[in-house]
């Protein structure tokens, strides 16, 4: 993963670049002065809670929504005045948006048909892509008979079939169950690397973003709150919002403002200065995640840490916090 962190966008000109992009519907501002670059062959994830403007961002890039202000460039060319269908993009929807009246094969072939590819070539490509997504031979199936995972794979095959310059994914795994989601996410990651796909990926699930992306952008109320490589973002969130959204449990209020303690900064230590009572214990991937409440009268903090053996709710433990790992957060 180390090579991912030197993604910068400065080395080569980005494939996609958004400058000062603003989008409003009537009085509602969906995007406000967004600047964003996606380098060729990279996967950029845009995360944020629902309603933060993620989908609008994709629709703007796709040309489905006219910009109120700003510009978007693809391959150094401004997209202004370029119609959606002339942009050479791929888009995968959360609800997969398969064409209900077409078969699986016809769904995948749709973009090829729009390129007026000859039938034989089309059929061959459809076969290849269905192979690629693990649905070989399902060409004539009706889309309503597909399971959620299958539908999502068909949507992927359909989006990839015309070899788009940029693939956009709108919560592509949102409707799937967790196991399937994780499995598909790493599968997608592998496919994208293999095929050298450039992708702009929108999701509210930070885990999915961390699995798939080279670079992550956190969007809040239509504005970019923070962006960076996954590790950089994880280790140094700059605001309470980002830290919370990424799933950091230990965000405390301090006299000087908010402070983030990574989960690794808290550990059980018989000599630790903090006395706390266990409130909750969850078993997680071989360890126990423990939530304990500080035993002080005023402004008691909740501390969350991972522990190798089980603690019982109600136990009183002594904890140590590694001050060196603490970071200040903007409100």
């Amino acid at each position, binding site marked *: 993963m180390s090579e991912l962190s030197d993604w910068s966008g400065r080395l080569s000109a980005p494939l996609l670049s958004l400058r000062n992009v603003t989008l409003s519907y*009537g009085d509602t501002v969906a995007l406000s002065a967004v600047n964003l670059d996606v380098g060729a062959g990279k996967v950029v994830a845009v995360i944020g809670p629902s309603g933060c403007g993620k989908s609008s961002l994709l629709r703007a890039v796709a040309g*489905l929504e006219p910009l109120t202000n700003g510009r978007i460039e693809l391959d150094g060319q401004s997209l202004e005045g370029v119609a*959606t269908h002339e*942009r050479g993009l791929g*888009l995968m929807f959360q*609800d997969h948006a398969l064409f209900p*009246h077409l078969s699986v094969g016809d769904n995948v072939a749709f973009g090829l*048909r729009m390129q007026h590819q000859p039938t034989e070539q089309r059929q061959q490509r459809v076969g290849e892509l269905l192979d690629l997504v693990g649905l070989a031979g399902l060409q004539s199936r009706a889309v309503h008979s597909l399971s959620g995972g299958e539908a999502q794979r068909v949507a992927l095959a359909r989006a990839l079939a015309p070899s788009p310059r940029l693939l956009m994914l709108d919560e592509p795994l949102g409707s799937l169950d967790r196991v399937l989601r994780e499995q598909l996410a790493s599968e997608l990651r592998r496919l994208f690397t293999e095929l050298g796909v450039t992708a702009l990926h929108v999701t509210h699930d930070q885990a999915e973003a961390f699995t798939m992306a080279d670079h992550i952008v956190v969007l809040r109320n239509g504005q970019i709150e923070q962006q960076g490589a996954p590790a950089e973002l994880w280790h140094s969130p700059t605001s309470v919002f980002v830290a919370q959204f990424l799933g950091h449990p230990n965000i405390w209020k301090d006299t000087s403002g908010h402070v983030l303690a990574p989960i690794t900064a808290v550990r059980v230590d018989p000599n630790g200065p903090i006395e706390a009572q266990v409130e909750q214990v969850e078993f997680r991937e071989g360890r126990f995640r423990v939530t304990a409440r500080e035993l002080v009268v005023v402004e008691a903090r909740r501390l969350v840490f991972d522990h190798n053996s089980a603690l019982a709710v109600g136990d009183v433990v002594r904890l140590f916090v590694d001050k060196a790992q603490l970071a200040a957060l903007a409100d």
Partner: protein
Amino acid sequence: MTQPASVGAAGGTRYPTVAAVLVTVTFFGLLVVWPLASVFQRSLADVGPDRLVDILGRGSVRKALFFTVWQSFASAALTLAIGLPIAHAIARYQFWGRKLIRVVAVVPFVLPTVVVGAAIEAAFSRVGLSLGRSVLAILAAHVFFNVAIVIRVVGGFWAGLDQSPVAAARVLGASPFAAFRWVTLPRLMPSIVGAGVLVFLFSFTSFGVILILGRGGRATLETEIYRNAIFRQEFDVAAVLALVQLLVVAVLSLFAARFQRRHATAQRGRDRRGALPLRTAGQRLHVFGIILLVVGVIGIPVLALVDASLQVGGGYGFGNYRNLLDKVSLLPVSPARSMFTSLWFALIAALIAAVVGLLAAFAVVRAGRVGSWLETLALIPLGVSAVTLGFGYLLAFTVFDLRRSPWLIPLAHAVVGVPFVLASVVPALRGIDDRFRQAAAALGAPPGRVLLLIDWPLIRRAAFTGAGFAFAVSLGEFGATTFLSRGEESFTAPLAIFRLLSQPGDLLRGQALALSVLIGLMVAGIAAILERGRGEEVGLL
């Protein structure tokens, strides 16, 4: 695990389906099949094969059949061609006048042909087109009268259509037109076919338009049935023609029902933001063009009518409207009272049509193959001439003496209204994702509650649209009413207009025009009320 939940096949809910089928069959059996059977039994009893061949072999019959079918197809195609862009604009864009278009579009539906025919001819001659016996005038009139069906039936369905496949297609390289052609159109087809069939049938049995604008030089099955039944009194010829008419209608509606069944797709998408504000200059220009189209097709004739109704002795005023309160000697009641009779009948007819139509819609959707037949059955009255049905009532209802009942008129109107309720409710019902019902059932809702809490809210709009049409159909109905009316208490506004225009005198003509405007306003008022009820709700969901 993916067993269909409570609705449909599950044993516990058979009874409602059976009951819905029975009500539908009884309603149409009593009010359509039985009367028609009586007519055919009476008129065809002495028709042997030779006579049949003789009648069908007549040049005039073949010519009428050919003209009827092609002008109906042309009318339906033209109405769709003009109505679809309007339906699209009001389904997809928010703009000033959007609701007004939906409201105004239904006005022509109730305007009497005698009044509008002249307006259309005048409109054509103003742009230098002399129509004579031109087919163009007939087609134009059919567009004018029926475009509301396309705007509302297709527009309502369109507004509820999931938009994400369109976005997907666009991103995949489909131009706006290609996306429409390959992704939107196929999903719209059930509603387009539904609306198209209704327009076809209305044109198929159109009577006044053919006579007035065809100047007697254009014969359709409908006008030939009338001519043979009334002027020539060759009842067997009329009955054979009526049978041919029935056959065409049955074949067409069977085809339509099967098509719709095969192509209905449940709407599962989430992108149903419905109409959006105009954001680009292109969109504004597009909508402006649509508004011009509406003004041209509906606005100008309607405004010409309003203008004429306000002319009093060389100036303008409300004299014609004030005169409606006085009974003139020609009429059994005052025009104002005829208006209330019409309103009353139309409300009853719309109510009956809504109740029967909803039950029929459930029957159609749930009763499998029987449903297809029911859909066909329900469309038949639209394609059968008022004369045939009128004679049928005369012959059949001597039994109950229903012939004398003042209920017969609203019942007969409701018969014609039900197909409209079906046309808008059935696609909506088929479009409901069954998972909603399953979810509700899983949450503990018994089938009745599922109907009330899931199906009803999702089809309510469609039901209102259909009932609104039933109201309009009843308000403007002339052919069957003139046959079934019995005088004072069933003297409706269209009868009054017709009667007022049967003698010379500006007083009479002014009242006829004013009365036409008022029933137009009445239907617009009802449409506006239904429109308010739906608020800015999006699509079918």
